[in-house]
């Protein structure tokens, strides 16, 4: 028996989502009284550091590695799960994790719970919590089968250090040849990935047009925040679709969400109301978003936002 965690890499390095998944896996292993084994693919440079988050072993697959193919990866991870006799497999709820989890659940005949946002409890069976109805409710889910697969929602389980770096061992598993061709398109350099961002600055129709986005970007830059927008803004083509947060866009849970010129329709709130702190800037004091906010500023965004940017810069330099 063991807990196997697939620690995903991003541009050659294991990042926060991997550490969050290992933290969850180590807690699960503690509950079950077993080992937490981390698996990496393609030799991330800091794989040994997974030991610092509680992995007792780190194994890496480098043979046959090229690009992500969920069919090929799922087979290799399932093979690895068989080799270490894993009854729990943990992944991040990332693009990779989501594409892999269903395949793994079928291969391993395991119960699957996706987008888990709490550490597990053990009451005969493992019980975890997850957000449902696009953030409007939380469900407690019990796994009923001997094996389970979990994907971990980003920004939900703070990575906790426990243990020390361990030596990375080459796994006795190879990747099959992929039948798909993949080319990575250049991502905007320096841009912060929205689902992983801890600080997010978001704009709505109140900005009146794409030409006015400069003040929002300056605020985001001063804070080191990712930028986002409401649905009407993405649908009008003012901002790219991948910035749309809300029920039919990306659901996020940053530490700080600053909503500027967004009225706060129920579909938008669904995608952001798991944020730790919400600031709303709107000239309409009746905007429904104020009811979901921790801090509100009633005022003209074209005056308030540059003022806030200056205040942030002053705070950072002070």
């Amino acid at each position, binding site marked *: 028996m063991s807990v196997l965690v697939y620690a995903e890499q991003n541009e050659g390095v294991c990042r926060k989502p991997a550490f969050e998944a290992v933290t969850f896996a180590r807690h699960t292993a503690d509950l079950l009284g077993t080992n937490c084994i981390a698996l990496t693919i393609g030799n991330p440079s800091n794989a040994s550091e997974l030991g610092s988050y509680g992995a007792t072993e780190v194994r890496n697959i480098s043979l046959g590695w090229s690009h992500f193919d969920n069919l090929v990866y799922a087979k290799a991870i399932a093979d690895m799960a068989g080799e270490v006799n894993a009854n729990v497999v943990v992944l991040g709820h990332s693009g990779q994790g989501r*594409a892999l989890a269903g395949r793994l659940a079928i291969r391993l005949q395991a*119960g699957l719970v996706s987008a888990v946002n709490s550490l597990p409890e053990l009451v005969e069976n493992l019980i975890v919590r997850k957000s449902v109805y*696009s953030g409007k409710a939380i469900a407690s*889910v019990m796994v009923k089968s001997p094996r389970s697969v979990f994907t971990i929602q980003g920004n939900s389980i703070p990575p906790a250090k426990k243990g020390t770096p361990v030596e990375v061992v080459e796994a006795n598993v190879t990747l099959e040849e992929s*039948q798909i061709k993949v*080319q990575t398109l250049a991502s905007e350099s320096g841009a912060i*990935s929205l689902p992983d961002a801890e600080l997010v600055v978001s704009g709505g129709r109140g900005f009146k047009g794409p030409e006015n986005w400069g003040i929002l970007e300056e605020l985001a830059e001063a804070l080191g925040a990712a930028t986002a927008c409401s649905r009407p803004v993405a649908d009008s083509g003012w901002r790219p679709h991948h910035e749309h947060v809300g*029920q039919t866009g990306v659901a996020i849970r940053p530490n700080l969400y600053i909503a500027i010129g967004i009225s706060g329709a129920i*579909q938008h709130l669904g995608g952001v109301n798991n944020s730790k702190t919400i600031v709303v800037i709107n000239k309409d004091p009746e905007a429904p978003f104020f009811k979901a906010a921790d801090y509100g500023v009633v005022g003209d965004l074209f005056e308030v936002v540059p003022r806030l940017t200056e*205040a942030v810069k002053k705070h950072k330099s002070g």
Partner: protein
Amino acid sequence: MKLLVCISKTPDTTAKISFINDNTTFNTEGVQYIMNPYDEWYALVKALEIKEKAGGTVTLIHVGPKNNETIIRKGLAIGADDAIRIDKDPVDSLDVATQIANAVQDENYDIIFTGKETIEFNNSEVGSMLSELLQLPFVSYATKMDVQDNLARLTRDAGGHEEQVEVTLPILVSASKGLAEQRIPNMRGIMMAKSKALKVVEPVSVESRSEIIAFETPELRSSCTLVDPENMDELVRLLHEEAKVI
């Protein structure tokens, strides 16, 4: 080109979410149901676009009771050719994926579409499970797609960056925003939908491996602290000292 679109039923995006029976059951009273937006706006419309270019058929498949035929008829009104309904109120993703796999495994579809997730459970599980059950390549979160003969070129959202993927059919694709533009059914489509074939299939038995044991609604925020728009230093101070987020 033989195309299949998996469609799901979800509460309307404006539905009030509440629970009954000691918070174990979703309260359906007064809730309007719709076709899952990712299935309707992106998956179905992309399938129709491919058919319009390359010829072929677009079939809808849905796992659900007879009441749900309203959303199937809407899909037919938007332009699908025919539909299959598997007669079971599904208990989870495994149930849905197994029922669909069982119904279509001998049908040799060139492309099977799902939405990237339902807005109800946000699991994103059915596409991955179904692709494993049918042993198909799976491109998730597709935002662009073009098909030439038996080669599909897709752009997928890989979380923070995009990837271009080339893959030979048959494949399974989960549709994300951007893949197509929503279509509204017209009167002619609605009339024609009434006479299109809707086949009802008996379900197979599936053993569930997980169960929702309770729901809760998130705590409401206590109250909003208003900050003077002239004094943004005060907002920064509150975010730093009180909320401790910057």
